Structure formats: structure tokens, C-alpha cells
């Protein structure tokens, strides 16, 4: 009986610590969990960034530098710096996502209050 309760606390403690660990990890884009980036990680991150860039472009919402940042990520990957490649690709991916949201949120023309 006593054992189960003790186990319960342990489980709770693990959930708590684990949960916090996850939260920090996700806010750092998992970088704190995994320091060694591989070529596959870079390839995947670059592909995801390019997909986000294209999606923004499909609604005329691509930003100026996103393609350039993806190019830099590709170069870093080629040079074997996969951590840098992933970091740059993630940055480009967020740009693509924000650019897409930016356009979708303005899908319907809203004339500003000063235009009257």
C-alpha cells in the first residue's frame, strides 16, 4: 500500500519534471534536448522551410529574405554545420508561416479607417 503511494509521488514528480523539460525544449526548438544535428535533420528542416516558403508564396505572402535564408541553410549543411543549417531553416520556416498567416488574415479587404 505504502509502496504504491510512494510510486505515485515518483510518477508525479517525473511528470512534472518531464513536463517542464519538454516545455523548455520546445521553446528552444528542441535544441537543448538534442545537440548533435545530423545531415538528415538539416535536410528535413530545409525541406520544411521551403514548403512553408512556398505556401506563403501561394497566397502572395512570401517575404524578401526567406529564400536567401534557406540558401544559407543549404550552404551550412553542405559545409557540414548541421546545427547552423537547422537553425537557419527553422527561422525561414517561421517566416513562411507568418507570411502565410499575414495574408490569410487579410483575405477579405478591410479598408483602414483613414480611407474615407
Amino acid at each position, binding site marked *: 500500500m505504502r509502496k504504491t503511494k510512494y510510486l505515485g509521488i515518483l510518477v508525479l514528480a517525473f511528470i512534472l519534471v518531464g513536463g517542464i523539460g519538454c516545455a523548455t525544449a520546445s521553446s528552444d526548438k528542441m535544441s537543448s534536448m538534442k545537440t548533435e544535428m545530423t545531415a538528415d535533420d538539416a535536410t528535413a528542416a530545409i525541406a520544411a522551410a521551403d514548403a512553408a516558403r512556398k505556401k506563403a*508564396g501561394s497566397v*502572395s*505572402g*512570401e*517575404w*524578401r*529574405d*526567406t*529564400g536567401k535564408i534557406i540558401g544559407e541553410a543549404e550552404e551550412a549543411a553542405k559545409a557540414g554545420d548541421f546545427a547552423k543549417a537547422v537553425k537557419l531553416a527553422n527561422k525561414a520556416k517561421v*517566416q513562411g508561416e*507568418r*507570411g502565410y498567416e*499575414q*495574408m490569410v488574415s*487579410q483575405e477579405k*479587404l*478591410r*479598408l*483602414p479607417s*483613414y*480611407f*474615407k
Partner: protein
Amino acid sequence: MKKIVLMTTALLMVVGFSNAVMASPEEDRQIFLNFYKERFPNVPQDDYINGVYAIDPVGRENWEAIEEFPPYETAIDAGKSMWDTAFANGKTYSDCFPDGPAIMSKYPHWNKEKGSVITLPLALNACREANGEKPLKYNKGAIANIVSYIAYESRDQVTNVVIPKDDPRALEAYEMGKKFYFTKRGQLNFSCANCHLQNVGMVLRTEILGPAVGQTTHWPVYRSKWGEMGTLHRRFKGCNEQVRAKAFKPHGEEYRNLEYFLTYQSNNLPLNGPGARK
């Protein structure tokens, strides 16, 4: 029968609704004009063809000094010789444009067969291609030369953009240009209207923001910053890129419709191209 009634009501609702939200192009133009008139009560309407210099007396002095030896003169001359020189097949631009070079006020216009806005550079390249010549690049160089010549020959004309009523797609193209104008773009999230309407006359670092009315009357432009001539769509590109948005293809659908909308706002203003800007 019931179906027809239903459909008609639905249609009426749609029409009624769109009328309620959509101002006509002419109403838009009046809003622009009144907006600027309120901000700059002493600027005569025709002075808007001088762009930002209509509202910037200091910049205007420098500009008037520059205009005494116009930096666009060589472009006009080069454009004239392009106009006069035969293509490889012996034909010339005049075969495509029988009314001669003074045709600026006919552009941009709606083309019903193509279902799109036709700009002058598009028409010039179509002429070249029909005669077996390579199309010109759109932002600068030869295209700016020939358009400079045409603009110069058209100097006594006035802006006259027509939105034909017999093809609803023309108004749609205008509305798309309008939407582009008011859409916030790029990482810095600016619309054209944020700068050229909402904050017109204000200073952005060192540059005074000029009004939209009159922005299309004087192209191509010799810009000191470029150190050469550039076209209207080159300027669109610059204004998109400075807010960190990816620029669109020159004379692609987005910029064509934008030119259609923007040039309409200068209707009745004299054409005074080519121009010079800092």
C-alpha cells in the same frame, strides 16, 4: 418557378451587398483627392504630378536645379532611335502602333480578348515578339529608353484610365489592384497606403512620403539613387522590398492590376514623363 425566385433573391442580395462595401473607382479617386486636399490645402491639384516635390519645398529646389539639365535626355534620344530603327524583318514599332509614339495616355488599359490589363511595356514587348525580336527586360535599360521617348512625345496628354462597363473582369482587376494597395505585406507589415496615404507628408528617416495621386504621371524616372533610368514597376519592386516583402514579377498580374488601380487615381492629371527623382 420557386427556384428562379430564390436565385433572383440570392443574386440581389449579392449585388446589394457588394454595392454596400465596394466604392466605385470614381469614389475611390475622390477619397484620395479629398484626403490630400485636407492635408495639403495649398497644393493645387495639377501640382501632384511633381510627386513628393509638390509637398516638399526644400527638395523641390534641388529637383528644379536638376531639371535644368534633365538627366533623362539621353534616354529620350536612345528611345527615339529605337523607335526609328527597323527590326530584322524590316518592320518598325510604327507597324504595331500606327498612331505614332504619342500613346502614353492609352495605357494601362483593359484588354477584353486577353482578359487582362495591358501596360505599355507589355504592348511594346508583344510588338517585338510578333516581329521576331527578343522581348526587353522590364526594369531598366532599353525598355526605359523607349518608354521615355513615348512619354516625352505624350507630354501634352492627360491620364485617362478607363474601366469598361461591358466586361466585369475589368472592375475585378481594378479591385484586385486596390486590395493589393491596402494589404500589409512583408516582414515589416506595411501596405502602400500606410506610407503614401496614412503617413503622407511625414518623414521616414530622411525621406518625405509622397502622395499616391500623381505617382504615375512621369515614368520612367531617372533616380539619383539608382544612378540611371528605371520603370514604374522597378519602383513597385523597391517599395515592396523596403518592407521586406518579396517583389512580384514586373508586369505580372499583381503589378499590372496595381498599375491599373494606381494610375486611375491620377485620372485627369497631365502626363509629364520622363521624370527625375532623388
